[in-house]
């Protein structure tokens, strides 16, 4: 279970989250919606351990009972958390394939221990290519530099590809739908849903719009407003918010 207890955070000396409570089991799909500036992306960044975000002492973030609040982002990744960035960062000069392989070997070695046998570069590439096919991502991306010159849609697909390779326990999709055209959105959303089923991943999808939720079909929907979760419900809440907006929700 991913447990967020009384999460209060500050960024640039402003209090953004004022006591967020949320729990999610593996294999579940939760949606987090809310107006601009409500702190959705800050929540995602806090969970992953962004250095600029200060988390209050009284807050707790637990993955399967282990408090990850003091862990650095790499330790959280090893613990099984994945964040699909809203704006994936470009790293010049670092080939995408190389990066995927280092990330995979590092995380798997840390999780499995000494018995872990890294895949040969050739086998790893085969594995990556087969996963890319599912996301309709061209193999040529592997030779390009990480996110450099990738279109918005390609960057988002690359995020989901990383999720499929790193097999997390819990994944946060931070506005993965923004900037995607209709067909890319479908591929990404269905891809994420399949991964959730295959690896029993608990997904927290952060979004403004209902469309991605039509594919992901979350069982739990939360409204983040004024720094706290004001309302929670089932899928019908998403429909209500989509129709009426956030004002009188």
């Amino acid at each position, binding site marked *: 279970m991913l447990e967020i207890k009384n999460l209060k955070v500050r960024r640039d000396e402003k209090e953004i989250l004022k006591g967020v409570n949320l729990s999610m089991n593996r294999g579940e799909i939760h949606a987090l919606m809310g107006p601009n500036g409500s702190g959705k992306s800050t929540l995602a960044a806090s969970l*992953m*351990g*962004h*250095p*600029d975000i200060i988390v209050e002492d009284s807050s707790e973030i637990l993955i399967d009972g282990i408090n990850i609040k003091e862990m*650095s*982002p*790499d330790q*959280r*990744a*090893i613990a099984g958390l*994945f*964040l699909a*960035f809203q704006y*994936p*960062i470009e*790293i*010049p*000069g*670092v080939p995408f394939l190389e*990066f995927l392989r*280092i*990330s995979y070997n*590092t*995380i798997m070695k*840390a999780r499995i221990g000494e018995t872990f046998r890294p895949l040969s570069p050739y086998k790893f590439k085969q594995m990556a290519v087969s996963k890319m096919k599912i996301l309709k991502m061209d193999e040529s991306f592997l030779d390009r*530099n*990480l996110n450099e010159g990738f279109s918005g849609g390609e960057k988002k697909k690359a995020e989901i590809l*990383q999720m499929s390779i*790193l097999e997390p326990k819990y994944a946060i999709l931070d506005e993965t739908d923004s900037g995607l055209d209709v067909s890319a959105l479908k591929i990404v959303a269905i891809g994420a849903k399949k991964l959730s089923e295959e690896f029993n991943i608990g997904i927290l999808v952060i979004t403004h719009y209902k469309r991605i939720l039509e594919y992901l079909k979350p069982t739990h929907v939360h409204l983040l407003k004024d720094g706290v979760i004001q309302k929670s419900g089932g899928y019908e809440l998403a429909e209500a918010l989509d129709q009426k907006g956030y004002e009188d929700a």
Partner: protein
Amino acid sequence: MPKSLSNQEKQLKKSKTEYKEGFHMPDSSTFKSEKGLNEDVIRNLSKMKDEPKWMLDFRLKSYELFLSMEMPNWGADLSGINFDEIHYYVKPSDKQEISWNDVPDDVKTTFDRLGVPQAEREFLSGVKAQYDSEVVYGSLIKEMSEKGVIFLGTDEALKKYPEYFEEYFGKIITPADNKFAALNSAVWSGGSFIYIPKGVSITKPLQAYFRINAANMGQFERTLIIADEGSYGHYVEGCSAPVYTSNSLHSAVVEIAVKKNARFRYTTIQNWYSNVYNLVTKRAYAYKDATMEWVDGNIGSKVTMKYPSVYLMEEGARGEVLSLAFAGVGQHQDTGAKMVHLAPNTSSNIISKSISKKSGRATYRGLVKVVKKATNVKSNIVCDALLLDPESRTDTYPFMKIDNKHVKIGHEASVSRVGAEQLFYLMSRGLSESSAAALIVNGFIEPIIKELPMEYALELNRLIELEMEGSVG
């Protein structure tokens, strides 16, 4: 220089039989030069080497120039050089061997981390003065001698191929060029001589490393390279493993002539220990439709001042410099490039990447000059500097002097640091902070790393990772 076929054949024969000798230092009685420099030291040096009179005259004239010239009033701080404390000539076979105990710990650690073979460690750290590489590289020697390629120590080459020396030596870089070229011209010893015959391509890089003997790591090496028409060659010197030496001044001169339609690349990876002043003058003349490429990696030394240059002498000539500098604690890398366009339809390209860490300072100094008759010139310069922490420093001093309007000149420079967002992203994928920083830094220098022979690229990447540990957080 026009050479009849029979002369070339004669040379081929000569080089085949006498090739091996290039690897042995001439026998001698014990000679140890005292500290400091004067005419007697130079006369003795020249006599030991049994040089022709013109070379002795050249040395003495250069010495006069050295005395009369001022230290440069720009560039790095050279006040630490004490000319009177330096031994200007030590016979390589007399070189003091130190004990392994005296080798600094940080040098030993780097050897371990880079996986440098034991025999090489002993040589690089001065524990052994000689490195016998004939056995390892015998087949390469054979291949080259069959093609007529001449690859000898400069001392030997002066004796065997004086005609090349008379034509080129001291002409591309005259002793009057700068004070350190004058010094080198007076006391030079060791270095490499390469002649590639017309139309010959050397497929594997020639490595000074494999011709290792103490003379190559000498203080005042003098290298002369001639790539004859239509030839191709690649010369690699240095290594990314640290070189520990008690010699505090390294002042080399490299002259290269790239003739019509020829292509030559000269790659250097320098990692002198942190006590060395590394002041080098490197220049190539590129003739009609010829291409000269300098790949210059500066990792070590206390101070390096080096600006590889290409003079584009005739139409169609092309020059390129890829420069990489790493300035760590207490280091000043003052490096760059010079491109002088003396003919129409020439082009040049400079890419400089520098990384500064802790109190390190990386300075780019460059010149692109286009003379009035050099019409239709293209030149592009990119300098990027990466600062790893608040104590590191970088400067950029590029000069463009353009006297012809038919040009396309572009210059861009930027300074940045390892971004917090980039670090966060990579760490969120499981990489530790120092692994993430190393990956970012390796990506930053990738345009230059990809031009290096594979073993060097791998070693350099590992070296960067080693340097990155403890540089973040």
